[in-house]
C-alpha cells in the first residue's frame, strides 16, 4: 500500500516542476562526464552554504522512508495478531499506531520536499548568477569563438538539469537506497525464507527487463534518428519555402518529403510496437512476482512456517523492493547527465577573464583624444597577420576615415582601440599613455561605439537610448534622439518612447541603427567610432544623420568606417587599408589627385 506514495509523488511532480515528457526507457541521453569527483566537489561548494537545509532534507528523507517501511509491517501484524484472532481492541490500538505512522510519514515527506525546493532553487540561482557575471568579464574573443546557442543552452538547459536533479533525483536516490536496505531488514525480521524468494525474484525480473530494454532501445534510437532527419528536412524546407515557391518546385519537395516520411512511418510502427511492449512486460513481471509470493507464501503458511499477515506484508515489500531497483538505474543516468551539465557550466566559469589593471580613475576626467598606433602587429586565432606593424596618428578632434576592401583590417583597428582584443606587439597610445596601462572600464567610457550590427535590447526605446548614460533625464534622451534623427520615427510609434522593442525585428534595421547612434550621442564620449553605422539606412536619411553627426563630431576624435565613400569625403584624414597595411593616406582631394587605390575605389562607385 505504501507504494501509492511513490507513484503519487512521481505523477504529481510531472504536473509541477518537471517539464517535458516523462522519461521512457532509453530516452535519457547517457552523457559521461570527465571529472566526476571535481564536479561534485564544486556543486557541493554551492550547496555548502545551505548546510542546515541540506541536513534537514537528509534527515527528513530518512525518517519518511522509515515510516513508509513500517506501515506494511504493522498491517501484517494487525492481521495476524488481532484480526485473525478477532481481537478488536488490538485492531483499534494498531489503527492508532498506524495513524501516527502515516501522519508522521506525510509530515516528513512534506518537510523534505519543502526544503528540497529552496535548496535546489537557491543553488541554481547562485550558479546562474555566477555564470552571468562571468559572461560580463569574459573577453570578446570568447564570444566570437562560441555560438550563442551553445552558451544559451549552458545557462538554461544545463542549469535546469542540475536543478531538477538536485530537487528530485538526489532525494529519490537517498530514499531508494534506504528503502532497499530497509525493505531487506524488515523482510528478514519477518521470514528468512520469504526474503530469499523475494530477493531472488526481484533482481531476476530487473535483469530480464534490462535485457529486453537494450534490445528495444536499438529500435527506439533508430526511430529517433529517422525522426531527426524528417525534422531536419522540414526545418530546412519550410525556411526555404519562399525559394521553392518562386521556382514552382512544391510538387518535387512534397515527393521528397513523402519518401522520408514513409520511412519514418515504417520504422515508427516497428519501434513503437517493440518499445511500447515494455509496459505490458513490466506489468507481467510485477504480476509474476505477486504470484510467486502469493503461492509460496500460501505454501509456507499451509505448513505454518509463516502467517497470513506475513504474506500480506511481503506482497507490499516486494513492491517497495522492486521499485527502487527499477528507479536506481534511471536515477543513475539522470545523475550522470546532470553532472555533465554542471561540468559544462563550470567549463565556462573556468575561462580566463579579461586582463585588466584596475585603477580608480575619475570618469569625469575626460581625455583629450589623441590616438597613436605605434607599429601595431596583430593576428586572431590563426597565425595570419591582420595588422602588420601599422602606425597611425589622430590629433584631438580629428575625423579619421578608414576605407579598404573587406578583410583589410578596418574593424580590427577598432577592436584593438577598445581593447576587445589585445595586440601582440607595438603600442597603442591615447593622450600619450599606453592603453594597456589604463583601466579598461575608464578607457571604454571615453569611447563611443556605434556598430554595424545595431543591437537593441528587449525593453522600451527610452531604456535602449538611456543605456548610453544611465542617469540621463527623459529630456536628454529625447534630445539625443533628435540629434540622431530618430525622434520623428519614434513619435510615430503607438507608444512613442515607451514602445517595447526586442532584438528580433519589432523595428527595422535602419531604425535600430538610428537608436544606437542616439545611444552613443547620449554617452557623450571623447572618442567616437562609427563602424558602418548607417549602412542600413537609406541614403537620404543617412544624409540627415550626417548633418547631425557633424555637430556631434566637433571637438571629438572620430573614426569612421564606411563603404559609401560619399559619407567620408569630409574626413580630415582618410586611411586606405589593404592587407593590414596603410597604403595611402590624406584628404579626399589629395587622394583623388594621387590617382591611386582610393581614386579607383571612388571611380568604381561613381561609375
Amino acid at each position, binding site marked *: 500500500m505504501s507504494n501509492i506514495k511513490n507513484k503519487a509523488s512521481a505523477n504529481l511532480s510531472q504536473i509541477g516542476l518537471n517539464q517535458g515528457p516523462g522519461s521512457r526507457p532509453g530516452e535519457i541521453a547517457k552523457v559521461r562526464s570527465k571529472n566526476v569527483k571535481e564536479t561534485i566537489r564544486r556543486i557541493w561548494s554551492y550547496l555548502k552554504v545551505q548546510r542546515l537545509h541540506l541536513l534537514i532534507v537528509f534527515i527528513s528523507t530518512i525518517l519518511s522512508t522509515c515510516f513508509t517501511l513500517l506501515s506494511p509491517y504493522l498491517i501484517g501484524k494487525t492481521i495476524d495478531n488481532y484480526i485473525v484472532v478477532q481481537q478488536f481492541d488490538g485492531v483499534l490500538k494498531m489503527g492508532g499506531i*498506524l495513524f501516527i505512522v502515516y501522519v508522521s510519514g506525510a509530515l516528513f515527506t512534506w518537510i523534505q520536499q519543502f526544503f528540497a525546493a529552496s535548496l535546489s532553487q537557491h543553488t541554481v540561482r547562485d550558479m546562474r548568477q555566477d555564470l552571468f557575471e562571468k559572461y560580463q568579464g569574459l573577453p570578446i574573443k570568447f564570444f566570437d569563438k562560441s555560438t550563442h546557442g551553445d552558451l544559451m543552452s549552458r545557462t538554461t538547459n544545463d542549469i535546469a538539469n542540475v536543478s531538477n536533479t538536485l530537487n528530485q533525483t538526489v532525494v529519490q536516490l537517498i530514499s531508494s537506497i534506504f528503502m532497499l536496505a530497509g525493505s531487506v531488514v524488515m523482510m528478514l525480521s519477518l521470514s528468512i525464507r520469504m526474503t530469499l524468494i523475494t530477493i531472488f525474484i526481484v533482481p531476476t525480473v530487473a535483469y530480464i527487463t534490462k535485457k529486453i530494454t537494450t534490445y528495444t532501445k536499438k529500435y527506439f534510437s533508430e526511430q529517433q534518428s529517422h525522426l531527426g532527419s524528417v525534422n531536419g528536412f522540414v526545418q530546412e524546407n519550410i*525556411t526555404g519555402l519562399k525559394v521553392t515557391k518562386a521556382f514552382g518546385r512544391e510538387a*518535387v519537395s512534397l515527393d521528397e518529403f513523402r519518401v522520408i516520411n514513409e520511412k519514418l512511418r515504417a520504422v515508427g510502427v516497428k519501434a513503437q510496437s517493440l518499445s*511500447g511492449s515494455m509496459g505490458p512486460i513490466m*506489468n507481467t513481471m510485477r504480476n509474476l512476482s505477486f504470484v510467486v509470493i502469493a503461492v509460496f507464501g500460501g505454501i509456507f503458511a499451509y505448513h505454518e512456517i509463516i502467517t497470513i499477515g506475513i504474506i500480506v506484508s511481503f506482497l507490499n515489500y516486494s513492491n517497495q523492493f522492486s521499485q527502487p531497483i527499477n528507479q536506481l538505474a534511471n536515477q543513475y543516468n539522470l545523475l550522470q547527465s546532470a553532472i555533465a551539465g554542471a561540468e559544462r557550466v563550470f567549463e565556462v566559469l573556468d575561462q580566463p577573464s579579461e586582463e585588466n589593471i584596475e585603477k580608480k580613475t575619475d570618469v569625469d576626467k575626460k581625455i583629450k583624444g589623441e590616438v597613436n598606433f605605434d607599429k601595431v602587429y596583430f593576428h586572431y586565432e590563426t597565425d595570419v597577420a591582420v595588422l602588420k606593424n601599422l602606425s597611425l596618428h589622430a590629433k584631438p578632434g580629428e575625423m579619421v576615415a578608414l576605407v579598404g576592401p573587406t578583410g583589410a583590417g578596418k574593424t580590427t583597428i577598432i577592436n584593438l582601440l577598445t581593447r576587445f582584443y589585445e595586440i601582440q606587439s607595438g603600442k597603442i597610445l591615447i593622450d600619450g599613455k599606453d592603453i594597456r596601462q589604463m583601466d579598461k572600464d575608464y578607457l571604454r567610457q571615453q569611447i563611443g561605439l556605434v556598430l554595424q550590427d545595431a543591437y537593441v535590447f528587449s525593453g522600451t526605446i527610452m531604456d535602449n537610448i538611456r543605456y548610453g548614460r544611465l542617469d540621463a533625464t527623459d529630456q536628454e534622451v529625447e534630445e539625443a534622439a533628435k540629434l540622431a534623427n530618430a525622434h520623428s520615427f519614434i513619435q510615430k510609434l503607438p507608444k512613442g518612447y515607451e514602445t517595447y522593442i526586442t532584438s528580433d525585428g519589432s523595428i527595422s534595421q535602419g531604425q535600430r541603427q538610428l537608436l544606437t547612434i542616439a545611444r552613443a550621442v547620449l554617452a557623450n564620449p571623447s572618442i567616437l567610432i562609427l563602424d558602418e553605422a548607417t549602412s542600413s539606412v537609406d541614403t537620404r536619411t543617412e544624409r540627415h544623420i550626417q548633418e547631425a553627426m557633424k555637430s556631434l563630431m566637433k571637438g571629438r576624435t572620430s573614426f569612421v568606417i564606411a563603404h559609401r565613400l560619399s559619407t567620408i569625403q569630409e574626413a580630415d584624414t582618410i586611411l586606405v587599408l589593404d592587407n593590414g597595411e596603410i597604403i595611402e593616406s590624406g584628404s579626399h582631394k589629395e587622394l583623388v589627385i594621387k590617382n591611386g587605390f582610393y581614386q579607383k575605389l571612388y571611380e568604381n562607385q561613381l561609375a
Partner: protein
Amino acid sequence: MWGLRSYIKPYWKFLIFAPIFMLMEVFFDLLQPRLAAYIIDFGVVERDMETIQQTGLLMVLVALLSLVSGVACNLFASRASQNFGADIREALYAKIQRFSFEDIHSFQTGSLITRVTNDVVQAQNLVQIILQRLVRSPSLLIGSVIMALSINVKLGLILLGTLLLLLIVLVFFIRFSFPLFSKVQTQLDSVNTRIQDNLAGIRVVKAFVRAHFETKRFKKVNKDYTQKSIKAARFMAINGPVVTLIMNMCLIIILLYGGNLTGRNDLQVGDLVAFINYVTQALSSLVMVSGLLMSLSQAKVSSNRINEVLTTEPKMIMKELDSIPSFSAAHIRFEEVSFAYNNVTKKEDMTLKDINFEAFHGETIAIIGATGAGKSTFVQLIPRLYDVSSGAILIDGKNIKDLPLLQLRQNIGIVLQDAFLFSGTIRDNISFGKAGSDQEEIETAAKIAQAHDFIMKLPNGYDTKVGQKGINLSGGQKQRISIARTLLMRPPVLILDDSTSALDLGTEKLLREALQDIMQECITFIIAQRISSVKTADKILVIEEGTIVGAGTHQDLLKSNEVYHSIYASQYGNEEAAYVQH
C-alpha cells in the same frame, strides 16, 4: 483533437481492437488479488494444498493472458498512432507547400516548423496515450471499485467516499497550481531574455561599460524567478503528502472496519487482504488519471495548432500541369495596381497605390527608393508571390490571375533578397529549378553570375557541400549562387530583388556586364540601393510611399525628379550632383 478525427478514421479497426485488448489486460490484472485471496481463504485457512497449487497455476496463466492482451493492445495502438502521425505530418507538409507568401507570413516560419515537428509528435503520442493509458487507468479504477464492492458493499462505500474526497483535493491542487506555474514560466522567459540579450549584445555591454548594471539587473530577475519557483514547488510539496495521507487514512478505516467485520464473521481474512489490494489499486489509478488529464491538456494545445494549419485555405490554388508551356513575355503591364498586407482597406495605408506602368521585351526596369517604399512587394506581385489587392497585372495582354500558377512561376525568374541555399552540393543548388541540367548549363549560369571562379577554388568545386543555410559561404557568394540558380532557368522575365547588396563594387560591375546579353532577351527588373547599379537601365522607377513618383532614364530623372536627385546627391556628394544638373 476532435478536429483531427478524420485522420484517424482509416485506422478505425485499431481504434476498436486496442481498447478491447486493454480492457482484457485490466480484467486479468484485477483477477490476481482475488485469486490470492482464494489461496489464503481456501488454501491456507481451509488447509487445502491442492487449491494452493491449482490457484497458483491459474494465476500464472492469468498473468500470461494479461501479457498477451497488453502486447496486442500496444501493437494496435502503435499502428494507429504512428500511421496517424505520418498521415498528419504529410497533410501538414503538403498544405504548407500550397501556402501563399501571405499565409507563411501570418503563421511565421518558426511556428510552422514547430507545428510539423513537435506538435505532430505530441498529437501522435496523444493517440498512443488515449488508446493505452487512458483506457487502462480509468478502467483499473472502475474495475477495482467494482471488485471491492463485490467483496463487501459497506467497505466499498468507504472507498467510494475516499475517491470523491481525493478527486476534490486533486482538482483543487491542479486549479491553484496552474496560475503559479504560469507565473514561473513568465518569469523564466524574462530570465532567458536577459541572458539572450546579454550574449547577443555583449559588445555593446562592454563598449558602454555596463557589466555592473547588467549584473544588477539580472540579479533581480533571477531572484524573482527563484522566489516564484520556490513558491510553486512548496505549494506542490503539500500535494503529495496530503494525497498519500488521505489514501492511508482510508486504509486504516478499512482495516478497522474490516477487522470488525471479520470478527463478526461477515468477512473472510483473505477477502480483507484482497480488498486492501483493490483499494491501493483504485487510489493509485486515480492519481494516474489526474496526471494523464494534465498531459491531455498539453496535447490539446498541439492538436489545435495543427488544426489551424490544416484548416487554412491557401489563397492561391495551384493546378497540376502535365506540361508547362513557356511564354514569350513580350509585354508586361500594371493597371491601377494596389496592394496591402492583412486586409488593409484605407488607401493611404496600402503598401502600393494605383501603380500604372508597362515594360517591353528586352527592356530593363530599375526600381529605386527608400527602405520600406514598397519595392520588393512591387516585383513579388509579378510571379504572384502575393496577389494584387485591386487592379491587374497583364502579361502579353492576359491577366496573370488567369494563367496557371506553375506556368507563371516557372517562367518568371526571381532572385530573392535573402539568398537561401538548400543543403546539398553547389551543383544541386544551381540546378534547383531544372533538375538534371548538364555541367555546361550549370557552368554557364555560374560564370555569368560571377560564381564560377570562387566555386572552382572550393575543395570539391561544384560538388562542394553547402552547410545548412549555407554557413560555410560568405553572403556575397551565396548571392551569386542564387543568381546562377535563377539564370539557369533562362526565364523570359528576370527579377533581381536587391540581390547584389553583398557584392563588392568591382564584382557587381562584372556581373552587370555579363548580364547584358541575357537582358536583351527578356524583361528584367532590378531593385537596388545604389545609383550606380541602376543608371544604365532603360527605365528607372522611383518609388516613394507606395507610389511611382518618377519614371524615366537616369539623365531624365536627374534633371527633373527631385527625389531621384536627392538620392543621387546623397551618394555622390553635392558637388557632382550640382555639376550634372547644369
